């Protein structure tokens, strides 16, 4: 899951860079925001969740 989280996080960055192929500022804004959402999901929804599964306080 850690690897998946990292890939999803990086994917958001790739999506944002791909927005540069668009010509409308509105479309670029939408795609960049989508990229940001994907990256945040990768960090908070996948990567962090994977670490919380084995959190030190659960072992206590």
């Amino acid at each position, binding site marked *: 899951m*850690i690897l998946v989280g*990292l890939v999803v*996080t*990086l*994917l*958001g*960055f*790739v*999506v*944002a*860079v791909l*927005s*540069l*192929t668009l010509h409308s*500022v*509105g479309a*670029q*804004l939408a795609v*960049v*925001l989508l*990229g*940001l959402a*994907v*990256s*945040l999901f*990768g*960090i*908070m929804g996948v*990567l*962090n969740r994977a*670490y*919380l599964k084995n*959190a*030190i*306080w*659960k072992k*206590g």
Partner: protein
Amino acid sequence: MKTTSKKLFLVMIVALCVVPLGFAQAPAAAPAAAPAAAPAPAPKPITDADLASAPVPSADARAKGDPDGSLTGTASDVTVTDTKKGITIGDLANQAGQNKIAINFMWTLVTGFLVMFMQAGFAIVETGLCRAKNANHTMMMNFMVYGVGMFAYWLIGFAIQMGGVGAVANLGGTPPLNAEYAINLFGKPFGLFGQHGLFLMHKGTYDVSVMVLFLFQMVFMDTALTIVTGSAAERWKYAAFIISSFLMGAFTYPLFANWAWGGGWLATLGANFNLGKGYCDFAGSGVVHAVGGVTALALSMLIGPRIGKYDRTGKPNAILGHDIVLVLTGCFILAFGWFGFNPGSTLGASGNGSLRIGSVAVNTMLAGMAGGFGAMFYMWMRYGKPDASMSGNGLLAGLVAITAPSGFVNPVGSVIIGLIAGVLVCLSVEFVDRVLKVDDPVGAISVHGANGLWGVISVGLFADGKSNYGGSWNGVSGSVTGLFYGDNGGQLVAQLIGVVTLVGFVFTLSFVLNLLLDWIVGQRVAAKAELEGLDLPEMGALGYPEFELKS
């Protein structure tokens, strides 16, 4: 008390929103009609002959001393190339050029010295927010990160960041820094990293202007590195800290800094893709603070929370710092150092719009004030007391947020940006602590990460189009202008691309480097050492040997 503070807070918000709008909407007074002035006579060109008669104090007069300063600093102090010809216009022009560069060197060096002193502020803020049993360890990390980061940056980091920046006009051109490695993407060059400047000797970089630029950029890099020591405090293995900081100073920080400040692809989004003036980050909300903040998040997630931070149900426990006096004193030191951080980022006080340093300095202090207020009132309303450490973090959050826009916004924009930052830092600390369950003993992720990103975004909203640094920014003519001041949204898109780069790319790079390090040397100390406190197991000496400490 709670209701009173709520009312006070609302009055402040209304005042901040309504009063400036009133000023903005007030019609400008028409200038009084002035009588037509007689045309001024055409200026008479001066010649070398005119200069020969320039008054110079006699040797006898100078020998008697100069108590009022009227005899010191005259034509006799201008360096003359040919003593037979005497002073010439060429001599004067050279002296004027050198004076301009000397002013800019002095400004950049002195502000760099101020930024260097911020390390002391970070050290005591972080140590004060940690427990006494970890004081030596936390101070040592903050102390040694200065040297570790500098070493990495001197070896390779500076070359990656600035090796292809091209001409820095305010510092005399920095001509040896002229090799940026770029790839071609979407039909445009994408600068990725610089190639000149290894060891400050490589390819002609043993150069006075390069040295000044190095010093200033080095202390910025060190600021980013010291952010991470706070979030990973009280459980980070010292050896791992050394290697992790080296990697960040050598690669992670310089890479993003190149893209934003070194002529890389983010800086050229305006020239290549017509997105405003490209990614604009005047003094480093993104480059310094968000890079530090997202790396802090990566490391804190990876390393895990301190023992006792969460109970078995995942409910967070407050682990209080040991010295609030240190914390608030450190915040003041940081606020003082920020006068180097932001105004110094003009890289000069003469030429290319550098006189805007006054505006930059005032914006900085206003945003810090607003951030402190925002956090204090938020905590007062929510918890019934004006929390001291969060008020300090609010001040820092305001300063972090204004760092990117400080050169592009007006005082009202600064106060709004700072006020939002002050509230945002409180919300973010709660979110990180309770929802993400990521342990950040000093709030670094929220202060520097969340507010660094907010500062970057705020440029795309609040830049008022009044700044003028030599007529262009990032190679695009005109002033940086945000959405609220008539831009079409292109500047905001450029800023958001920078934000996604920080969250998507820099976070991932930091995480992977630290994950590899975790596998190789291990990032976290043993549980026994953590419970005992890291001073003895890791450093071999207690921070406060004469005090009796409880675990």
